[in-house]
């Protein structure tokens, strides 16, 4: 800490001393002589003075500009009446007849609201028309409506270039987010999230297993506190964030009060219900039995044909035969197929889930102080019992003007997120959905003696539902303190100190009824407390000045220091006296663990922007980042960027053309870096102490062993990005189009490169690959009807991204059975499979491409299909009529593939017999010559059901989803005012009401794991819920 303060002192000191040595001139009245004509130009809406407006007296050559106070003065012989022609950047040209020498306030109307929207950029704000870069904005109101815990999941279809995959229907779980594609293999691919200037942690802190997926730490933020969200996409926008900007930057601004406003109290209450729109089709008990018998019959025939004596013995008796038929033969008789029952376990674990949401806020301010106080409670049950998520949050934003030069303020959010978790994903033990979905339907839930039955390695569903005890409490504080000082009228200084602290407390108890805790384990308890502490100190100095008539200049310099520590303390106990004892201190065997890791980052940055008359814009930025992750020679990375735009609309030939209300072209190029996601000590050669050995002296003795190869040349991953964009407004702003095209190329990709086993190591942290992304983003806003009482507007976004691994020294395989491959020349998230060409209608045998004499060599395995879409986006429409507002949002993805692993396990052709369910699609198997189907003949022999990477389970995951429909009614002012309330609104929201897809599983947005290099493996996760909520919003 001391070091850190010294490290930032360098920037502070000269500033402070300069502030002391230069007396600031008081902004005062400017004495004018011999004024004949005067007036004041103001914004028609905000009534704020407009500086730099050009006032021309019609029919003369006289022309002046307004000063900082919006005032203009003519010293002229002209006498009233005159006609002024007034033009100002972003405002409609105005002609006004004036007959008083002092014209008083002259309001101007904004050209188009959208162009003047204030957009948050790195360390500053801009009006949209002044941007040189590609930035998407989403209003806070758009991310509060869906029944998902975190705001990022609600961005789907709303922001061009931002790909969101929900991956699971569990509320509060992590979401797959990519801004302009995937740039890295082992370094983080998620965007940087900044909340009110705090770079927040977005890496899950989960340590206990929930089947491969992990909880999202972004769910700690209450979406209701968000004012707006900006997604910075191109290098010109992100390079100011240097090493943190390669995957895009998401800037979240929370709500604040306004000065001189009376307190507004807002209450929002909503409730609803969610359910699973579609589940899996399984075989019934009798169907399962028939299929297994058929499998035995066919296998026996094949064994006889092959002369396989062991096989003949194994398949001689049908398992589903009368219980009196050869009762001692193997397999034991299970009764005739017709005698089998069907047990619906899915129906037991899926059900209606309750949703509740309460938000209160109070905002206001006086001359010196403004405040926002918020409180919220949300509870979302999962459609998969017994999981649930709830969050209590508090928010306090406060700003205080100390004097007319200094403002201090603070942003604080504190939340407690509680998760009742379950294992929904991979792995049999404790796996809730797997136990319900993958246990054969004919197997009873209780044994003959009435005890709960466990089958095939899966837990008993009822036992799990009644004994599940896995939960997590996360206490999160995100906050900062800032000081703004106006050193000179054009020179501003800002210093912030921010903190992101998360205490993530997990506990897991598996009692002796569950598989994990059953005898001889006798109860298994895990407790883990993870503390993530990140602090950031930042100084910026910005200078913004209008030079002469048409030159606008801005300069920004700053520095940042960041430090992030993660400390985990964990304990595990086994051997409990009974299920009543749950604390690890009562366990017979106890193990403890502790880990600690830390990274520091120091940065210096600067930016200069210039525009000429609002026509020609130029911006350049430069950032230097030093990271403790790298060796001495490679610590510092340098990230420059430039951007330019030409606002053609301001040229004289377009200025007065009302058909084209805006036209701008933009271009940018820059380099960003990445070091997040890799181990904090990735470059060091390390020996670990975790290799003790009980060597006979007495118990465990400490031991050490090589853990990691050093790579002192390890360095920054660098992504260069070029962007070209076009903004076009037509018909007086009724149609607005934004199009961007980009090309990103990542060098020195950070990855754990496999090394030859002879070294004694598996891999080394390296900069070894190159990845490219190119794509487009198009956003179209239209105001279709703008009547007095009826208004209809639409918004369409379409984005496409093409990813390619340009260089990779060796292929890297992902997930069990290597279903996914990363290799040179293919895109990330490619599947690696054997291609099933079909099923021979004569024999019922599967036909694989590249099979040789009934064998399938590895060389036949090929890259096919990809989990990333060719394009994706959203289409939203909003209608308003009198007090009614209707919003309809569709989201879509096209061209992505999903590997249906639930089906892979459930269509095993009988090879897994009593160990796995058979899905209804298995009934389509080949039975007799002439059958045309892609499901091969049931047998244990040949390739029909013995290839784990069969392309038959690769499916088209394209979808069109009616993501959201919201309808609200605002009670007329006349009525609400009589009730002494300023606004009263009631609403209903439906989510995920309709889904169009060819995918045969319940939901194509599914992925079994949170591993960032794996997508599109559908196993064991619940589908997105369908929900309906109703609510009321009241403002006093």
């Amino acid at each position: 800490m001391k070091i850190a303060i010294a490290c930032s002192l360098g920037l502070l000191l000269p500033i402070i001393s300069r502030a002391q040595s230069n007396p600031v001139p008081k902004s005062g009245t400017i004495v004018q002589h011999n004024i004949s004509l005067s007036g004041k130009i103001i914004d028609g809406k905000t009534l704020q003075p407009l500086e730099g407006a050009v006032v021309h007296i019609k029919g003369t050559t006289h022309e002046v500009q307004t000063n900082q106070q919006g005032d203009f003065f003519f010293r002229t012989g002209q006498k009233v009446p005159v006609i002024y022609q007034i033009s100002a950047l972003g405002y409609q040209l105005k002609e006004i007849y004036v007959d008083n020498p002092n014209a008083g306030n002259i309001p101007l109307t904004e050209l188009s609201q959208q162009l003047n929207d204030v957009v948050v950029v790195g360390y500053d704000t801009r009006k949209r028309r002044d941007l040189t870069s590609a930035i998407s904005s989403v209003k806070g109101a758009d991310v509060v409506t869906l029944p998902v815990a975190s705001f990022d999941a609600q961005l789907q279809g709303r922001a061009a270039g931002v790909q969101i995959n929900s991956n699971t229907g569990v509320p509060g779980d992590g979401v797959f987010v990519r801004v302009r594609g995937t740039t890295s293999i082992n370094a983080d691919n998620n965007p940087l999230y900044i909340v009110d200037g705090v770079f927040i942690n977005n890496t899950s802190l989960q340590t206990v297993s929930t089947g491969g997926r992990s909880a999202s730490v972004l769910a700690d933020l209450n979406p209701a506190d968000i004012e707006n969200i900006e997604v910075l996409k191109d290098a010109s926008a992100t390079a100011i964030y240097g090493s943190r900007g390669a995957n895009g930057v998401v800037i979240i601004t929370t709500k604040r009060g306004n000065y001189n406003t009376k307190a507004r109290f807002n209450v929002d209450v909503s409730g609803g219900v969610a359910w699973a729109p579609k589940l899996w089709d399984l075989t019934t008990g009798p169907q399962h039995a028939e299929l297994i018998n058929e499998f035995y019959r066919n296998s026996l025939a094949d064994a006889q044909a092959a002369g396989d004596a062991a096989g003949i013995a194994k398949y001689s008796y049908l398992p589903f035969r009368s219980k009196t038929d050869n009762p001692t033969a193997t397999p034991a008789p299970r009764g005739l197929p017709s005698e089998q029952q069907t047990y619906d376990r899915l129906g037991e674990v899926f059900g209606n889930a309750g949703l509740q949401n309460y938000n209160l806020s109070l905002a206001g301010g006086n001359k010196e102080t403004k405040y926002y106080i918020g409180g919220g409670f949300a509870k979302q049950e999962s459609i998969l019992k017994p999981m649930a998520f709830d969050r209590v949050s508090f928010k306090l934003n406060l700003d205080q003007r100390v004097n007319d030069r200094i403002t201090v303020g603070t942003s604080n959010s504190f939340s407690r997120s509680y998760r009742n978790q379950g294992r929904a994903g991979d792995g049999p033990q404790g796996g809730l959905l797997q136990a319900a979905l993958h246990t054969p339907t004919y197997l009873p839930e209780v044994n003959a003696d009435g005890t709960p039955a466990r089958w095939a390695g899966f837990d008993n569903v009822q036992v799990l539902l009644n004994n599940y005890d896995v939960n997590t409490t996360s206490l999160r504080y995100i906050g900062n303190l800032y000081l703004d000082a106006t050193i000179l009228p054009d020179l501003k200084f800002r210093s912030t100190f921010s903190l992101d602290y998360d205490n993530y407390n997990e506990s897991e108890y598996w009692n002796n009824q569950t598989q994990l805790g059953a005898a001889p384990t006798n109860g298994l308890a895990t407790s883990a407390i993870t503390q993530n502490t990140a602090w950031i100190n930042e100084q910026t100095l910005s200078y913004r000045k209008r030079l002469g008539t048409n030159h606008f200049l801005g300069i920004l310099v700053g520095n940042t220091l960041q430090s992030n520590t993660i400390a985990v303390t964990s304990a595990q106990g086994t051997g409990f006296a009974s299920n009543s004892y749950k604390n690890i201190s009562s366990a017979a065997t106890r193990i403890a663990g502790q880990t600690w890791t830390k990274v520091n980052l120091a940065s210096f940055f600067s930016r200069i922007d210039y525009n000429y008359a609002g026509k020609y814009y130029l911006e350049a930025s430069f950032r230097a980042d030093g990271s403790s992750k790298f060796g001495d020679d490679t610590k510092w990375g340098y990230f420059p960027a430039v951007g330019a735009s030409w606002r053609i609309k301001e040229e004289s030939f377009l200025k007065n053309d009302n058909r084209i209300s805006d036209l701008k072209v933009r271009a940018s190029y820059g380099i960003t870096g990445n070091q997040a996601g890799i181990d904090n000590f990735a470059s060091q050669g390390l020996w670990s102490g975790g290799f003790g050995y009980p060597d006979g002296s007495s118990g465990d003795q400490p031991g050490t062993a090589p853990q990691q190869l050093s790579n002192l040349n390890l360095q920054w991953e660098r992504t260069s990005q070029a962007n070209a964009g076009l903004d076009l407004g037509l018909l007086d702003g009724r149609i607005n189009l934004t199009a961007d095209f980009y090309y990103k190329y990542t060098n020195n990709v950070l990855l754990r490169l496999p090394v030859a086993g002879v070294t004694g190591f598996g891999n080394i942290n390296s900069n070894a690959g190159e990845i490219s992304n190119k794509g487009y983003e198009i956003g179209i806003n239209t105001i279709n009807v703008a009547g007095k009482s009826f208004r209809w507007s639409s918004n369409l976004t379409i984005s496409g991204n093409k990813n390619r691994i340009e260089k990779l020294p060796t292929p890297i395989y992902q997930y069990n059975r290597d279903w996914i491959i990363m290799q040179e020349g293919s895109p990330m998230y490619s599947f690696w499979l054997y291609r099933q060409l079909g099923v021979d209608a004569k024999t019922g045998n599967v036909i694989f491409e590249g099979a040789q004499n009934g064998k399938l060599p590895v060389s036949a395995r090929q890259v096919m299909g990809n989990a990333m879409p060719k394009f994706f986006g959203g289409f939203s429409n909003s209608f308003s009529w009198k007090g009614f507002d209707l919003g309809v949002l569709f989201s879509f993805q096209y061209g992505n593939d999903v590997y249906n692993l639930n089906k892979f396990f459930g269509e095993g052709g009988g090879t897994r017999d009593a160990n796995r369910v058979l899905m209804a699609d298995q009934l389509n198997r080949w039975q007799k010559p002439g059958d045309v189907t892609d499901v091969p003949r049931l047998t244990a022999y040949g390739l029909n059901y013995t290839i784990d990477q069969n392309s038959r389970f690769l499916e088209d995951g394209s979808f069109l989803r009616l993501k959201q429909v919201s309808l609200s009614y605002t009670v007329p002012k006349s009525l609400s005012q009589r009730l002494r309330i300023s606004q009263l609104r009631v609403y209903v929201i439906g989510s995920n009401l309709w889904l169009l897809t060819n995918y045969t599983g319940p939901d194509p947005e599914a992925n079994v794991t949170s591993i960032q290099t794996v997508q599109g493996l559908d196993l064991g996760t619940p589908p997105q819920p369908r929900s309906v909520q109703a609510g009321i919003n009241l403002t006093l």
Partner: protein
Amino acid sequence: MNSFIKYSSILAIAITLLSCKKFLDVKPQDSVSDEQTIVDKTSAQTALRGTYRKLAADGYYGSLFQTFGYLPGDNVQWTGSQSVIQQFITHNIQADNGNLATVWSAIYATINSANHVITKVPLVKDATFTTDDRNQIVGEALFIRALSYFDLARTWGNVQITLTPTLTATDKDDTRQSTQEQVYAQALADLNAAEPLLKAPATPNPVRANLETVWALKARWYLYRGQWSDAATYASKVLTNLKNYQLQQPYSAFFAPASTVATKESVLELSYSATYTNGHRNYWQPPANGGTRQWAPADALVTLLNDPKVGGNRSALIAKTSAGLWYGNLYYRSPATDPTYLIRIAELYLIYAEALAQQNRPADALLPLNAIRVRAGLDPFSNPDKAAVLQAIENERRVEFALEPHRWFDLVRTNRAGAVLGVTDVNKYLFPIPAQEVRLSNGKLTQNLGY
């Protein structure tokens, strides 16, 4: 700007740059860098223990390497869903089988650990570190390396030999592939080097290697190489130390009850604890006992073990679930602290018997053979015909080491895999080198024939 500001700025920048350098230097707390590992006696001992831990790791003698010895035999059947396991049982191993790669890496990681100890310990400057202590540590590391190369030789045959610690990723780029003969020779060379460094233990401590452990592995080495006289010599050297090594009565006494560790049955066993658990039980035990029963004793083995004239009291190796399914019960403890039984004295009896029979002394072989049979509660074997004795030894080894990693390697070394398992393609006697290793070796590794 006055001079005060100028100089204060320069000073500030200087302080800034210096302190930034410190700020950006963060050291881990649960690991240390390469240079600080073996610097004195204590750190040499911890590095040796780390080498044992590597030997005992899940990928090596914890579970996966052991499966290489029993899955391809005829004692185990596949009950799980993963074809990586099935490939071993059906003798159809693909070069991209994940377990092949895991075991390969685990063995070389053990070798690298051993290489650090062997290379660095003699150079340590520590006056309190006596020559005897150094010799013992280096000797044990040499033994572990010998065992590693022995296992590489019998599994893959033609592998790379490396005798130096790996310090950078490119250190081993030029390591050529050796032949199976050369790899076996390296194992023997390491054993020969270890022999003079180690002492016979004053009290038995089978969880670490000593002089007698070296002799035991030498006996096995000579048996595999068909050098019967040496095999007999080294086996008898260990067998005669009745103070340290004895067959336990009954058979199950070397692994049950659950508190049983380091009995006199063991010449070398690897020890585990609640912290360092042995995952092996998980594959064998049924779900009711918290395992997965990924594989199970084959019907034929169940019949043999339950036959009082064949299995005798060795039927304790298997147990039955309430649903009537048999499972292996050699690894069963909770927490999972089951030792790995690496060399049992029973093996030396049978090595001795086989070596004598092969030297045309079948009648003499009956004595050690029957020691095993009698311990199992069986009648002595009395037919002194050489072929009959050798067959009896083969049969005995099958049940005596039913769930230990011997059956496949035994059938291969005696050239009986064709007759017993129907594996007639001799190329399959060696496993394929992991496809990834061939690819990563820059042409240094050539795939074994037939794959």
